């Protein structure tokens, strides 16, 4: 916000940063081969839905596009609204053949249709799910506004809801810092609770 904007209280919502989503499509190879972290075969994109007919039309167009691109790879698409009123589009690889590339292509198809519709500033983030050798869930979250990735590891202990394993996240940052453009400001590693993948 510049001086004039601050003085006049003018503020526009920021659109997406230059796209670094596809970094995950190569980074997962390192995750798999060096750190024994396997893709869980699912990814999701989160955005605000606008309650108007024009946005609904964009949504319909987009679902067609994603279903069409997903048709070749067998990727399945499901929409879900969370309790905060955000829409999740969950993409799943066919059983047994996880492919981060297919998921990244699918997520990119969704985000580009939203941007094409002129609603780029409604995009919140994309989430890619992974599992380590103990079958623990690990997530990499892509923040569209910032164009950065960060790890998110919910604590697996059910007696401690809404706790995250910061230690594991910092390890992942150290392991993947060269491959993924990581969010440098730790206070922007926003958690997402109740990820449906």
């Amino acid at each position, binding site marked *: *916000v510049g001086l004039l*904007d*601050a*003085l*006049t*209280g*003018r*503020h*526009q*919502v*920021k659109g997406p940063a230059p796209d670094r989503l596809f970094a995950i499509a190569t980074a997962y190879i390192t995750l798999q081969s060096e750190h024994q972290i396997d893709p869980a075969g699912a990814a999701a994109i989160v955005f*605000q*839905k*606008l*309650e*108007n*007919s*024009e946005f609904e039309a*964009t949504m319909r167009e987009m679902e067609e596009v994603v279903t069409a691109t997903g048709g070749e790879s067998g990727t399945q698409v499901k929409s879900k609204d969370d*309790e*905060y*009123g*955000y829409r999740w589009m969950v993409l799943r690889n066919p059983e047994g053949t996880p492919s981060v590339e297919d998921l990244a292509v699918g997520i990119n198809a969704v985000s580009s249709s939203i941007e*094409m*519709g*002129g*609603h780029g*500033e*409604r995009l*919140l*983030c994309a989430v890619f799910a992974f599992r380590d050798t103990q079958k623990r869930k690990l997530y990499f979250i892509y*923040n569209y*506004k*910032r164009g950065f990735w960060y790890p998110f590891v919910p604590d697996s202990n059910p007696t401690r*809801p*809404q*706790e995250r394993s910061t230690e594991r996240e910092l390890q992942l940052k150290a392991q993947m810092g060269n491959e993924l453009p990581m969010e440098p*400001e730790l*206070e*922007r590693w*926003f*958690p997402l*609770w109740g990820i449906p993948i």
Partner: protein
Amino acid sequence: MAATAHRQGRKAFGKDTGLQARMLMTLFLLGLVYAVLVGVLIAVGAGGVTILVIALALLGLQLFTSDKIAMGMMGVKEVSPQEEPELHGIIERLCVQADLPKPKVCVMENQMPNAFAMGRSQKRATVCATRGILELLSPAELEGVMAHELTHVINRDVMVMTLASFFATVASIIVQFGFFFGGGFGGGYGRGNNEGEEDVVIVIMVAMAVYAISFVLLRALSRYREFAADRGSAVLTGRPSALASALLKISGTMERIPSRDLRTAEGMSAFFIVPARAKRSLMNIFADHPPLEQRLAALERLESQLQGTA
């Protein structure tokens, strides 16, 4: 083609050049009034300059400590994500959306439904909700209210209002204490006693005028910034009607709550989402928040822009 049309439509959403022009005009008038005050203070010499220096120190103190003092006085408590998962969840998503570092999240154990933001910069911001508002509003409405408070943070309203009211504070100090310390004004070289006394009277008269005019201007500025925060909230959430519904709910409850509860929060009302005074002011120019009807009308215009019917 369609995409371009949409994009243009989106850009128009939430833009209000008139509001910005009014704000700049108000700031300009404030500057003009303040320039007169500073001019007079410098003209009377050493005493006036001393007052300016003391006032500057007070300003620094206010910027750096007022939020802590206010929070301590109002019994505001910082809450962890475990204690208030929903509130934190809403604020985190809005911060991602607004590309803002996460502020401190606080709750005030008070049944009066309200919310406010504090802090001089984005990095040191605090948003606070009362227990009453958390219980009263639905998640979407609460999101609208929190987006309004975060817009205050984005727009640096605490900083702008503190700076804008700086010379008004100076003027009020002069008016209040000028009579006691009056002798100091005439300290210039080679002046007779009579001249010094005249200076004191002039300074106090000017300070009174500056204080009166800037008071009205500052209230206007505060109202414009409330409109801007409503607008920012609507742009951030894409749901102007949710905020409108929240405002309706809050104001409905506010008027039923006895004023005994409200008095404690009186001094902070500039940054509350709805002013803490339940009584409706007779003269709008003295109000620091715009009337509810005007805010609802502005939100309604945004909703029709969003629906493409405007």
